[in-house]
């Protein structure tokens, strides 16, 4: 239970469509320096926990300092979330921490601006497929994500599927990419404009390199700084101004493996999608309508698979990779990662932990 402090939001609404009404919220975080959680010994699920007496969220530390502390000291920081992949080796080689890597349900993909002008129409499936065939996903995973990711076939990461993914990632086929691109009218076009937020800047530059190499076009990469993020997100969601990019490299997750289409596919492609950049697609909306009509989980899973296949086959995004969630965890903390949330009820500690000495 919450015993001290808070982690709250100030929010501004961004309206996506008015009929049916759909909106998202642009969020400003508001946290106290410390947020303390105390064990609720009345919690009904005794098998699950809690096992910890107290959890303290330290919002009084800069991230770089926190990472250094968890690696090199005890007693200050026990868990650091969102370890960037380039820092994974530092954690693995550290004195007091271990790297916990886990497959979340989170996809990094390119939003394709199907309304853009001056290129082969990106409303043309051939152009979108060309872009997907131009990408060397294996190299992006290895080099831009330091190996801590898996290539995406559609928008659903493999971690959200109970069985082997029936879809395969687009092959890296530069010759076929160039053929399709030119067939769609791609010769002698202006540069492809690629945008991203800072967290995906490296991936955006890798995508640019692949598009240049495979399609023979120039690219321009814009990485938006953190203080521009809300403005950019509003423009994405409200769709009132033309976009200034052709592909936006974007990371988006789902809060449940059972609701991936509601959060990922709807967001990228759907009428109510805060990330959609292009016309509403009746066939996609029909599939989503079918999903909502199913109350049986097996039938929902079948329709969800068809939605992912449709998005894949129509190349309605630039499919890149599903990054792992990386945590730096004190060696005496037994942390159980969850795919979609950061839960601590299951977390235990060894007798050597500094707080038990």
């Amino acid at each position, binding site marked *: 239970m919450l015993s001290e402090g808070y*982690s709250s939001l100030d929010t501004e609404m961004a309206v996506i469509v008015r009929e049916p009404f759909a909106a998202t919220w642009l969020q400003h975080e508001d946290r106290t320096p410390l947020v303390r959680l105390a064990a609720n010994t009345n919690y009904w699920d005794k098998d699950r926990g809690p096992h910890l007496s107290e959890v303290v969220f330290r919002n009084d530390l800069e991230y770089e300092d926190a990472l250094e502390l968890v690696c090199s000291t005890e007693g200050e920081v026990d868990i650091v979330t969102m370890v960037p992949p380039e820092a994974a080796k530092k954690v693995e080689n550290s004195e007091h921490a271990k790297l916990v890597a886990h497959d979340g349900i989170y996809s990094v993909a390119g939003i394709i601006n199907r309304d853009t002008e001056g290129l082969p129409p990106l409303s043309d499936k051939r152009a979108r497929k060309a872009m997907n065939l131009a990408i060397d996903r294996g190299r992006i995973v290895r080099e831009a994500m330091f190996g801590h990711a898996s290539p995406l076939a559609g928008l659903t990461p493999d971690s959200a599927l109970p069985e082997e993914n029936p879809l395969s990632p687009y092959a890296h086929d530069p010759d076929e990419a160039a053929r399709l691109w030119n067939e769609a009218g791609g010769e002698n076009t202006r540069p492809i404009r690629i945008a991203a937020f800072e967290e995906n800047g490296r991936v955006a530059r890798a995508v640019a390199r692949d598009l240049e190499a495979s399609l023979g076009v120039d690219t321009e990469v814009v990485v938006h700084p953190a203080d521009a993020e809300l403005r950019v997100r509003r423009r994405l969601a409200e769709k009132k101004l033309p976009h200034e990019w052709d592909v936006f490299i974007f990371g988006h997750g789902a809060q449940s493996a059972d609701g991936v289409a509601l959060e990922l596919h709807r967001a990228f492609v759907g009428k109510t999608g805060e990330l959609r950049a292009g016309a509403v697609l009746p066939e996609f909306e029909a599939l989503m309508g079918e999903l909502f009509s199913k109350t049986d989980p097996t039938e929902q899973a079948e329709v969800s698979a068809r939605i992912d296949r449709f998005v894949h086959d129509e190349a309605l995004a630039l499919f890149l990779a599903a990054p792992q969630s990386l945590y730096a965890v004190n060696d005496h903390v037994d942390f159980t990662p969850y795919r979609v949330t950061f839960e601590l009820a299951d977390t235990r500690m060894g007798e050597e932990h500094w707080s038990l000495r």
Partner: protein
Amino acid sequence: MSERPTGTVNVVDPSPLNWLCITYNTVEELIRTDKDGNNEPAAMSDFRWLDDKTLEVDVREGNVFPDGEELTAETVRRAFDEVQKWTSPHPPGTQFNLHPDTKLEVVDDHTARFHLPETDGLAVGKLRAMHLMNTRFWEGPSFGYERQGSGEGHW
């Protein structure tokens, strides 16, 4: 290892979803996700579709808030009434809304039925966003009521 909770863990979590993390670690909903991200009953012990528009939930018995108040079907009703006041209560967006014309029936202390005007098979998963709170919370801070004078975007 000791059976009673012990020790202190210090966490640094820069995630923009930290507000949701704190919520999920301190509050319960009818449904939660397991380690693999699959929905599983939490404050409810079971559920069933009576027909394609009627979702019945069994509220788990013996579930008690830290202040001793029991979590019952009335708790669910209160949370439902509060969340349905708002056009867009959930920060991620309206995709987690139940239809505005949904009605909740309290059948008995531990049974509640959601009567949906149209089929919404994803309604079960959407219950993840309907946090079950005690009376003291509703009479105190609530979700944005006290600070912002509105629950829009604060669930």
